[in-house]
């Protein structure tokens, strides 16, 4: 059997797990591991400029592929810098393995240089964590970390490795386990057939059904099954922010995103539905609005892999614990076999109602109230220029909502955003993580001048590895979403929500060796964007001036029902 040091085992285990790229930043506690990394070529390391970016890169790789991404950060500040990225992945149930260096085991607890209790600090935002106590355990711990991160409801796993566990002179037998079993962890592999039958019986009786599908459909690779079921039922489908792309965005049966900034027709349909089939969604507060007024006439079927998500905020009438893919497959089979068919006349009149809603407000915004370009126009142009086929990695704020509303995602895993934690600074490293793994695809970072500055240093990493992502910066010279709330709830007192002293982004991009473009007029947008995307091997930063006074609509009225919305600055339902 091969004899390897702890440091070599870390890298070898990653290789044996099929990992191609790891994202990280070296430091004292990791020197042995970085030395082992240097002496092999199979696992490629990407040196970021801040550990937060390493975690977002790993996270976005996972969002695009379904496989766990890997970040490697040192002890102390390296580890704490990774926390935001770990929390981001945790909130969106993204598989990730984060290896953190730790001070030597005999120094733990002595406030040693660059010591942080990473197991303790990360505990609330990890699915699980391991602290290596014996170097021999490294292969099995890494195997367990991947198994836990990727199975069941996915999530980030931290592996904390004290420096002396990686000592190059201590060698151990290395064997990477093929599979691993944990007696205390057995995620469900299928849903309860009786419950699924009961659910389909209710679905086929429904007169006003809505399928409400979330990120579980994306991470559960169940988009095909969802589409097939929806087609069989002729039911309207709404996606959560995390679920966009889970159902084709240009299909007639897609009624848009739901929730706080959901479409008029999606929120209206939810409110009036008599049956909601929720799949891989968690009735988040940004979806339900006031829980006591939520969907008053609907029976609720809730399919989720995590039993704790079911009946957490909204009581389910039929709970089904299981992976979305399996449950939906079984549902499709049942509908096909069933003698009962959807109630045609009821479904037809339901569609008539939905089409009325769609015609009344669907996707409208004003372009005549300002001579500035509208952010929505930019996203629609982006959708056009990239043919709706790009990986769109978003930051957080108004631009995120505009991208979610106006980019039509026809495929899963292409909309990559921090939905749960709402992490500004996510977009650029996320785009980098995707582009490195899909070099032939168009990868876009939709951002604002606020968010982009939270990880702007990564323009340097982009230079080092030549990662030709395209940055679409909707520059409204203010923290748009904060400003919108201040406009609506604080009589436009714009406390700290405008960005003074913005850099010249064109020059900044050029300083890092990239292409910068400034666009101020809508007439110039298409040509500029087409040019940007024609520069296949260059990173392009498009600084696009947009109307600073634009708001995101619809916007649900706080604590109201699903249908209580502002539709514009002056119009309410």
């Amino acid at each position: 059997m091969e004899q390897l040091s702890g440091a070599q085992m870390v890298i070898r285990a990653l290789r044996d797990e099929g990992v191609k790229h790891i994202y990280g930043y070296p430091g004292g506690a990791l020197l042995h591991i970085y030395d082992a990394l240097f002496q092999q070529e199979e696992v490629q390391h990407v040196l970021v400029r801040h550990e937060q970016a390493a975690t977002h890169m790993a996270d976005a790789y996972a969002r695009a592929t379904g496989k766990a991404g890997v970040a490697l950060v040192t002890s102390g500040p390296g580890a704490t810098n990774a926390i935001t990225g770990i929390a981001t992945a945790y909130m969106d149930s993204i598989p990730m393995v984060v290896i953190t260096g730790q001070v030597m085991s005999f120094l733990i607890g002595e406030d040693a240089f660059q010591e942080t209790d990473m197991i303790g600090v990360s505990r609330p935002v990890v699915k699980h964590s391991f602290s290596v106590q014996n170097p021999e355990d490294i292969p099995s711990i890494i195997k367990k970390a991947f198994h836990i991160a990727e199975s069941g409801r996915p999530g980030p796993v931290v592996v904390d490795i004290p420096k002396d566990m990686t000592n190059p002179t201590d060698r151990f037998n290395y064997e990477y386990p093929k599979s691993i079993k944990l007696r205390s962890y057995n995620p469900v592999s299928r849903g309860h057939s009786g419950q699924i039958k009961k659910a389909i019986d209710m679905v086929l009786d429904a007169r006003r059904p809505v399928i409400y599908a979330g990120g579980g459909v994306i991470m559960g690779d169940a988009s095909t099954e969802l589409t097939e079921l929806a087609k069989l039922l002729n039911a309207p489908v709404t996606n959560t922010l995390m679920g966009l792309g889970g159902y084709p965005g240009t299909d007639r049966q897609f009624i848009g995103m739901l929730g706080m900034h959901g479409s008029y027709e999606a929120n209206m349909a939810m409110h009036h539905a008599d049956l909601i089939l929720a799949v891989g969604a968690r009735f988040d507060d940004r979806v339900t609005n006031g829980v006591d007024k939520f969907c008053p006439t609907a029976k609720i079927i809730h399919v989720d892999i995590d039993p704790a998500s079911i009946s957490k905020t909204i009581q389910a009438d039929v709970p089904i614990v299981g992976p979305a893919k399996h449950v939906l497959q079984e549902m499709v089979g049942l509908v096909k076999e069933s003698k009962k068919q959807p109630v045609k006349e009821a479904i037809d009149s339901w569609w008539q109602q939905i089409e009325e809603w769609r015609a009344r407000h669907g996707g409208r915004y004003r372009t005549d109230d300002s001579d500035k370009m509208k952010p929505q126009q930019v996203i629609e142009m982006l959708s056009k220029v990239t043919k709706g086929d790009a990986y769109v990695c978003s930051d957080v704020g108004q631009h995120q909502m505009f991208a979610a509303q106006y980019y039509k995602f026809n495929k899963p895993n292409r909309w990559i955003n921090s939905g749960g934690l709402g992490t500004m600074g996510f977009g650029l490293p996320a785009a980098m993580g995707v582009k490195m793994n899909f070099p032939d695809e168009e990868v876009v970072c939709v951002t604002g001048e606020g968010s982009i500055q939270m990880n702007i240093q990564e323009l340097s990493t982009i230079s080092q590895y030549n990662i030709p992502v395209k940055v679409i910066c909707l520059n409204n010279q203010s923290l748009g979403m904060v400003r919108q709330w201040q406009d609506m709830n604080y009589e436009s007192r714009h406390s700290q929500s405008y960005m003074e002293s913005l850099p010249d982004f064109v020059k900044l991009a050029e300083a890092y060796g990239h292409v910068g473009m400034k666009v101020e007029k809508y007439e110039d947008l298409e040509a500029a964007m087409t040019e940007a995307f024609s520069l296949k091997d260059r990173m392009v930063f498009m600084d696009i001036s947009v109307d600073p006074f634009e708001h995101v609509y619809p916007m649900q009225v706080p604590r109201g029902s699903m249908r209580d919305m502002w539709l514009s600055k002056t119009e309410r339902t």
Partner: protein
Amino acid sequence: MRHIISVLMENEPGALSRVVGLFSQRNFNIESLTVAPTEDSTLSRLTVTTIGSDRVIEQITKQLNKLIDVVKVVDLTEGDHIERELMMIKLKATGQMRAEIKRTADIFRGQIIDVTPNTYTVQLTGASDKLDAFIQTLGTTNIMEVVRTGVSGLSRGEKVLSL
């Protein structure tokens, strides 16, 4: 309503902090907590008493089950169960009180386990409300120190919480 939740978990470093952290993180309440290894030294048994609505208790058991180190969870209060708590209570015992404390301890089936000229230490075992009643009966003026283990419990009859 008060619930007694029993948790069988891996006897691993950090496992207890995950359970305790979960309670504070999700705003669940802990009335008492006991934990010790079982006859199988790789497993720990933890008992937590908590107060909450049915919905909160459901979330507590589900969230506990999600912890990777947790093997099994049962809400003992859902069925017939036995609960015990142990208390040691140090009391000022002078003059007439010496006899009075002895009598009361006997009534509660407590034992005096330490004696000095001025103090008695009484050991008492039972359900939590029995221990409360003992404290109430003696009144707080004589109490010098109280230590309670928190509740331990198990199901009556054949039902067991094991691997």
